[in-house]
């Protein structure tokens, strides 16, 4: 009874964003303010065709299936034209590892083929630009802060000196005397 009620609640909760878990096209983005991103980054490179890939699962020989329960889900891909080898054991699912390995391979091939124009290189440049500009802003901010602090440090001195200047021995008094000799 309780479980049925929970399922009912679950159903009602999920009336919302269907498209979030439907694999829609890669171009779709879920943001309410698209103008925040001025420059479109290059698309993720597509994995190379399957006939160029040699796939192997790193699993010991011997019986499989029900008889053993290996947690080894590693996937190794070799890109035949370039000889790039990728090994992936990011998750416990071999199916997910296969997808991740293909994405990694695509990125590596992209770097090799396109060099400076590859997605990774462009991302790197953009990131560096951002970091540089942030560092510059930071420097500027702290420089002005420092200047303000120094100015604030000098001011009380001046006040203190002008306080003692009533006795007529402070430097300001001397300065005044120099400029306007009586």
């Amino acid at each position, binding site marked *: 009874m309780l479980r049925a009620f929970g399922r009912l609640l679950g*159903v009602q909760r999920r009336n919302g964003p269907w498209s979030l878990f439907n694999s829609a096209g890669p171009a779709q983005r879920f943001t309410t303010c698209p103008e925040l991103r001025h420059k479109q980054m290059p698309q993720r490179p597509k994995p190379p065709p399957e006939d160029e890939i040699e796939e192997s699962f790193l699993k010991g020989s011997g019986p499989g299936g029900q008889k053993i*329960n290996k947690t080894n889900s590693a996937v190794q891909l070799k890109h035949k034209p370039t000889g790039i080898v990728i090994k992936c054991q990011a998750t416990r699912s071999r199916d997910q590892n296969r997808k991740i390995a293909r994405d990694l391979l695509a990125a590596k091939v992209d770097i090799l083929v396109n060099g400076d124009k590859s997605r990774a290189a462009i991302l790197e440049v953009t990131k560096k630009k951002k970091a540089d500009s942030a560092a510059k802003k930071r420097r500027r901010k702290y420089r002005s802060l420092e200047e303000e602090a120094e100015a604030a440090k000098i001011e009380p001195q001046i006040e203190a000196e002008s306080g003692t200047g009533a006795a007529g021995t402070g430097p300001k008094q001397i300065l005044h005397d120099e400029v306007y000799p009586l």
Partner: protein
Amino acid sequence: MPRLPPSLFWQARQALSPLAAPLLRVCRDLPSTANELRWMREHIAVTPSLIPPKLRLWQFAERRARGEPLQYVLGTQPFGDLEIKCRPGVLIPRPETEAYTIELGRILLSSHTNNPKTKLITILDLCTGTGCIALQLFRQLQASATLLRVQGIDISPHAVSLARTNLSHNLNLNNLLVPRPPTEEANQSQTIRFTQADIFSPSFLTTQQQQQQQQQQQNQDQVDLDLLVSNPPYISQPGFARDTARSVRNHEPRLALVPELRGGSDDATQFNKGVLPEDIFYARLLDIAKTLRPKRVLLEVASMEQGSRVVDMLTQDDDTAKLYPHVEIWRDCPHAEFQRQTIGDREIRIRGSGEGRSVYLCRADM
């Protein structure tokens, strides 16, 4: 099992963690120990608990070091697009099963899109266990099939309740769309259900046939099952003692691994006509296929030899042999190309690479 050098335990302690040394006893090498520790940490990071994380990690490592499978320790195993919950008493889904299930889903999907006349897809998953095959096929076909009926059957009440839990768990994770219940106009309904039944009982076949007839009356045309899929117990008694891994032998249910007939001598004589004890489920499953006439059948097997024995059983019976002229044996990774081989006087196709893993039958009209 070869003895591990003590230096390796030192290395594990120094390089990984003090918890790695006991884990090494079951993982047997440093990379897999590091991976299992990482997965435990990742699991702890995403699942909230009142127990402090460090204590939890220690508890996990302790249980794993005693030989319990990682899937029982963490409680889950990814399977295709889904996350399947695992509990002691129900067999853990294997990666080989995952591989052929995804391939099977792909075949059903392409045949469905090629003839859009066939609206209804019905799938029967026998010995469903955690429900992984049924749920994954449901997930793969959900987007394109308007009429989809998936039924999972298991003899163990634990398995059936876990399969139902897995359905609601994946609905909560948004891995599955909400099944549409049958409405007034029955053109749009997707149902998946798990029921407890003994496939060896005579009443099993009659209830299944009745269901089929009901469906035929509803739809007013011939509705055969689209797929009969099963991952039955298939390990022999001596094989269980000799070939299975220790974690499997000590922690996973024997009921799901070694075929045993509980019905007594009647059943035994009925199904033992020249059939090896580890093959009795296949004899029964081919019987069921003969009666229900599914368009496709897939049965998981232990090895190439067992696969050949199943093909032999198929050819011995003339009716089933005529019904399924198209026979394939799939290896561990069924993505690769075909080879041809003759077993007896019958030419079959072998698909993929690795150990023989499943027998795939297809009707002539498909």
